[in-house]
């Protein structure tokens, strides 16, 4: 599968955008400027970038607690994301959701969510709507290896299988749920054994190689758009930061393992590859980064310039009109 330089640049830009956005959050967190539970996506950028490159605005996705990357790759506005994380009135959720609950329904991003596995049932409905709408729409759900332990995982695989839903299961296997290895928690050991049991097409790929993810997702998406049923894509990866940004939460993963995986940085690796292949010059790379950093800075400024919600705003939005 040939990936055009334009697509390659786009993949790189998406990854780098996520990275720089997330790095800025780490900084903001360390400076005590943001509060709540912020789950960093650093290290896993290739998955959101590679998968969502194939998604249209009318395709819908459901995310999980580690959702910033999915938002950005689906086309969300960093300003409104940042404002939400900052708890501002101009945020996507008017400050009601925070980092764990960013959504943009207008672009088919049906929300991040704080309950492990809970996005899976919701995504079934998004996929069913796509099926009922016709027009080859599809849906995707992102979830971790930890979510594969919840009963909802089984129920979602099963329903998607029997209803042949156009649903892409994207398992971001970063190998740990908080500090617990999936090798301890999952009897299957290989996650794809489970979708396989339900006769769901599946594939396990290197989640740190964006082109590998991109190509696998291309095939999966084609399969979905052809109405052949659901597809399960496991992307093997690693999280660089603690489970959530925190000064007190321990990180019990082996330090060497983390170092090993940092060497496999999806963003740097791809940057090097594109530079070596002559797709991007260093100047171009620098320009891209500068532009992204400007956007991130702009997002932070937007957030800081935005008003906090009034206390009484808490009373609104319990019900829709």
């Amino acid at each position, binding site marked *: 599968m040939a990936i055009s330089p334009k697509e390659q640049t786009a993949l790189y830009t998406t990854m780098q955008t996520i990275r720089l956005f997330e790095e800025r959050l780490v900084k903001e967190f360390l400076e005590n400027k943001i509060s709540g539970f912020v789950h960093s996506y650093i290290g896993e950028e290739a998955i959101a970038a590679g998968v969502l490159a194939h998604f249209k605005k009318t395709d*819908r996705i*459901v995310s999980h607690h580690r959702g910033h990357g999915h938002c950005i790759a689906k086309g969300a506005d960093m300003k409104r994301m940042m404002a939400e994380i900052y708890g501002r009135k101009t*945020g*996507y*959720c*008017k*400050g*009601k*959701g925070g980092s764990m*609950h960013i*959504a*943009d*329904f*207008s672009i088919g991003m*049906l*929300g991040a*969510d704080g*309950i492990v596995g*809970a996005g*899976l*049932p*919701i*995504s*079934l*409905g*998004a*996929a*069913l*709507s*796509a099926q*009922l709408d016709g027009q080859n729409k599809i*849906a995707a759900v992102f979830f971790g290896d930890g979510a594969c332990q919840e*009963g*909802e995982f089984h*129920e*979602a695989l*099963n*329903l998607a299988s*029997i*209803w042949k839903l156009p649903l892409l299961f994207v398992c971001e296997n970063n190998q740990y749920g908080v500090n617990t290895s999936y090798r301890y928690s999952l009897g299957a050991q290989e996650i794809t054994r489970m979708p396989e049991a339900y006769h769901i097409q599946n594939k396990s790929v290197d989640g740190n190689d964006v082109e590998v993810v991109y190509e696998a997702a291309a095939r999966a998406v084609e399969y979905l758009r052809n109405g052949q049923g659901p597809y399960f894509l496991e992307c093997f990866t690693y999280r660089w930061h603690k489970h959530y940004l925190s000064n007190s939460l321990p990180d019990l993963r082996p330090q060497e393992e983390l170092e090993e995986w940092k060497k496999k940085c999806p963003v740097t690796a791809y940057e090097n590859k594109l530079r070596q292949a002559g797709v991007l010059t260093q100047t171009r790379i620098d320009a891209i980064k500068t532009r992204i950093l400007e956007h991130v800075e702009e997002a932070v400024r937007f957030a800081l310039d935005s008003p906090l919600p009034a206390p009484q705003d808490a009373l*609104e*939005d*319990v*019900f*829709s*009109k």
Partner: protein
Amino acid sequence: MREINCEQAGLEAIQEEFRRNSKTVHMSTDMPLELLQEFGPDRIRMTPIAENSFCGAAIGLAGSGYRTVVNLRMATFSFVAMDQIFNHAAKITYMFGGQAKFPILYRMTIGAGIGGAAEHSISPYPMYMNVPGLKIILPSNAYDLKGLLKTALRENNPVVSFEHALLGGVQYPVPEEEYLIPFGQASVIRKGKDVTLVALSKMVQEALAAADELKQEGISVEVIDPRTLVPLDKEAIFKSVRKTGRLVVVDEACQTCGAAAEIIALVTGQKTVFAALKATPARVTGLDVPIPFSPPMEKFAIPDKNKVMDAVYEVMGMKISVKKAES
């Protein structure tokens, strides 16, 4: 006027609203044949026995422009789907700042009296009331059921409908013509001046039976059926209690933190109503026990006409009791 039962009334409500709006889906573990025949298998979907998955799917459908009716059958089955209902359906509108609407109707059967024992006989609406973000309807007859379900099917929020097992087959006059019943409008079923009986779901029958007998004895009872618990028509209750000065709440659900406690807290928290009270407000509720299987115990665990009458005597300051009188 023709009479139909709740089952039929519920079916008609869905049929009428599904005809109006084709972006509607029905899910249940069994297959409702009339609906299937009219609306086809795309919209009328039989699910696996996996309540959390389809209660959640309804949320995803809602966020994608479809309105879903989920019939869970027995309310006890909703416990496996609680995370989707309490943590997601209820909160998703708010959590995402109101950017999308979530029109979902969850229907479930409640109530003791069917020999279903502890799991299959519950009336769990109080815990649903403690979760902001859900509208809650509790119809006590086929007329209200149809009108409220139709409103629910035009409502842009998750609605939970609690339908009593023993009401399913009860015939009731229901017009052929279309009508809707707005949420938050109690029905004052019987006017009275001595005591206000607020009765929920099947307990409306017990309250009316008690009111009948009490009338013979010269006690004039006002019977109010709130019909919807969220929103609750507080004003109707306040107005009545201001008039009668006496309140008895009759509810089959367990007592502790139940709907009756809430109604009493609302009434006693309202200065002018509190000032009008001539007696301690009383609760006649299900006992705080799981529902037992064997009929003598099962009957004892839930309120009936006699217990309602006793409570009325009590708030009237009369020293008699049905049970004592009968034995």
